[in-house]
């Protein structure tokens, strides 16, 4: 049994203790936002926030999150109440296949929580653990800047 707070709600998952957080989230927790990309911290598709800090869910044991707060892209916002970053990605049409976006969005949210007005270099540095193959990088950077402006307003 592993207990933690997932997107603001308490969850108890009956899983082997060494199960990766990614498999726990996509399996018994029933989420689809965190995505498998490589399993070796190489692409950022699985990124989630643990206590507000970006973490690779693919290599992190779910048991290491016991008692902690885990946030996935589903926890950032919903279509009815989107996070400014989600709204900004839609406004900038900052995606093609979209597979990388779940991880990028949570990393960007962590960045803006710590640095409300990041410059472009800081945004690119924060997103450097994330791979995007469709070439949406510049639109995503514009979306982060847009969200920062919205959040400051």
């Amino acid at each position: 049994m592993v207990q933690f707070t997932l997107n603001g709600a308490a969850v108890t998952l009956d899983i082997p203790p060494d199960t990766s957080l990614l498999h726990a989230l996509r399996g018994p927790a029933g989420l689809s936002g965190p995505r498998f990309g490589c399993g070796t911290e190489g692409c950022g598709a699985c990124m989630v926030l643990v206590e507000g800090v970006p973490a690779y869910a693919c290599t992190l044991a779910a048991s290491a999150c016991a008692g902690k707060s885990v946030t996935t892209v589903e926890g950032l916002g919903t279509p009815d109440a989107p996070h400014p970053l989600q709204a900004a990605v839609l406004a900038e049409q900052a995606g093609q296949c979209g597979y990388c976006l779940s991880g990028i969005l949570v990393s960007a949210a962590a960045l803006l929580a710590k640095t409300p007005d990041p410059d472009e270099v800081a945004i690119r540095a924060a997103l450097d653990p994330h791979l995007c193959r469709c070439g949406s990088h510049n639109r995503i950077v514009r979306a982060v800047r847009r969200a920062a402006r919205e959040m400051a307003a």
Partner: protein
Amino acid sequence: MSAPDRGEPEARSETRPHLPSSGFTNVTGGPPPGAPKLPGSLNANRRLSQWLAFHADGRVTITPGKVEIGQGILTTLSQIAAEELDVALSRVTARAAVAPEAPDEGVTSGSLSTQDSGSAMRHACAAARGIFLQVVAQRTGIPVEDITVDDGIFHGPAGPIGSYWALADAALLDCEAPAEARVKPAAARRIAGTSVPRLDLPDKVFGAARYVHDLRLPGMLHARVVRPPSRGAALTALREGPLPGEARVVRGGSFLAVLAATEWDAETAAARLAARAEWAERDTLPEQAGLPDWLREAAMRGERSEVAARGTPPATVSRRLKRQFHRPYLAHASIGTSCAVARWQGEALEVWSHSQGPYNLRADLAKALRIPDARVTVRHMEGAGCYGHNGADDVALDAALAARAVPGTPVRLLWSRAEELGWAPFSPAMLVEIEADTDAQGRLLSWRSHIISNGHSSRPGRAPEPTLLAASMLAEPFPVKPSINPPMAGGGGAPRNGVPLYAIPHLAIETTRLLEMPIRTSALRGLGATLNVWSIESVMDELAEAAGEDPLAYRLRHLEDPRAIAVLERAAELANWAGRSKREGWGMGLGMARYKNSGAWAAVVAEIEARERIFCRRLWVAGDVGETVNPDGAANQYEGGAIHGASVALLEQVRFDRRRVTSDNWDAYPILRFSEVPEVTTSLIDRPDQPFLGAGEAAMAPTIAAIAGGIHDALGLRPRALPFTPETLAAGI
């Protein structure tokens, strides 16, 4: 996005009416003899009810045979349908293709989807509108010319007289599309031609279950493959032992997989099983260090053919330039790994797949499993971005083989990153030799080239034997045949864009397709264009320099195609090419091509910085895709293609030893990251009265060419081999 599919093109049935079973065709069916020609894929899929349906609740569903691969085609087709039907875009839902229900539009590739499917959808919807209006006119006595359609409601002079929705059940579309349909003139369009937001993006931003990876069926098991340790390895023994989670082993020939209730158990079991498997290994791959030599040598045993020939050799020549260019194998490197879900019910197989060609996959699954086509259903679901023939089809067979062990139970099989980067088909290594002659004024007189490569397609569904990966590993294995090239009428494979667009009196272009294939090859964005455009543009740059001319001016004086001239001038203007200044360690270069010499135009100016390695800092991209259905979507495709090109130019090469592909992780196969991606400025020339041309592949190859030009501008050396790393720049070819 407009026209943005990516991958490889194919000939269409109208250009090759009598196809051998191994040939290329976009469609399996065809019109009856003497039937009028209909636009795009409608010609071979003529029933209107296959393309669209109205529903009493005020919705329209469209059912294209082309699939969403990250390019935005479902948005584009929905716009076209809403436009011609005169309904709000929000009423239109595009359903994913199912083989055998959807129109058979072959493979979503070759930047042909807006051409093939968009023109079909436009005609089908215009025809449907006409049929409904005829019926309403007959019922009301009001002439068709006096009826207007406003968001699906039909209005006569005195008010509403009906709607699509009221007539939804009348089976009015159970007919063949008429040859004549009143398609809207360009000036009347309100939805097509506007940058409506992508319809699929909200799901992706909120983490909704949209990808095949997210499909969860009741009782579903998870499966993983235990791959051989090297290519050509045969499974000789498997030690018994316990596995976690009551995992179950599936073994047939050298195909080995495990099934378990959870992903965690499946992965743990696969790792344990791998440690218990014994394989007979052997050397099957060439020496990577001598790849150009291997290509030359294998070409002697290859199949040489003429690509293009015109004119006669010049009598006198002032300058002759002879150059060679090389590129390594390239990987698709999608961020998601390939995935499929399969379920057997009795003798019938149902597969959920992110294949680019549901019908083609269905045909090859049937062959590999030795069952009739009719027993196989392939349902498309989206995957991570697709840039050509990747592992999507292969994993579907893996899933079907694993699921055969548990009849009635759905099985989800996901590839590892090592499988994705190590076992999916690769874009082949290539070598091109060019000789160009000019007169004393630098005017091109003759161009001769020889393009050496494995074929650029081993797509499923086209050959007598299945081409799916596991088919060659079964207890009764199928042979692996060398890849083939699409015909030049469909854009060609290795020689794609190998014929210069420039005015040259004498041309002799040849290609040699290798008949041995140590590394399985197939289509990846641009196919041969990624080498051919760069090599042609490099020679043009060098000839310009020899003639003492600016690269732009030299190109322009060899161009007659006004749209090629227009994109070159637009890119040069965006980049302030004429006013560029020389900075130490920085350089600018230019590249231009018309994709496939029949598709969209793209011209690119690149600015690079040479430091410890080469960085591409800025790209200015000009494009022309004819009519643009979704300008922002098309621009997104051009941007993405340009960044993909920059990544290929600067970083990418598949690495291998004599037995295995070693670049099977992101450290060994790096792609451009956020901090390395150039700024991209894109400008598209809209031509609303011109046919659609696909946007997905046009910008990639010219970007590589422009970066090479920038490297010469900065360092004074001309790259001869991809990628443009310090090692290859120092080594030449």
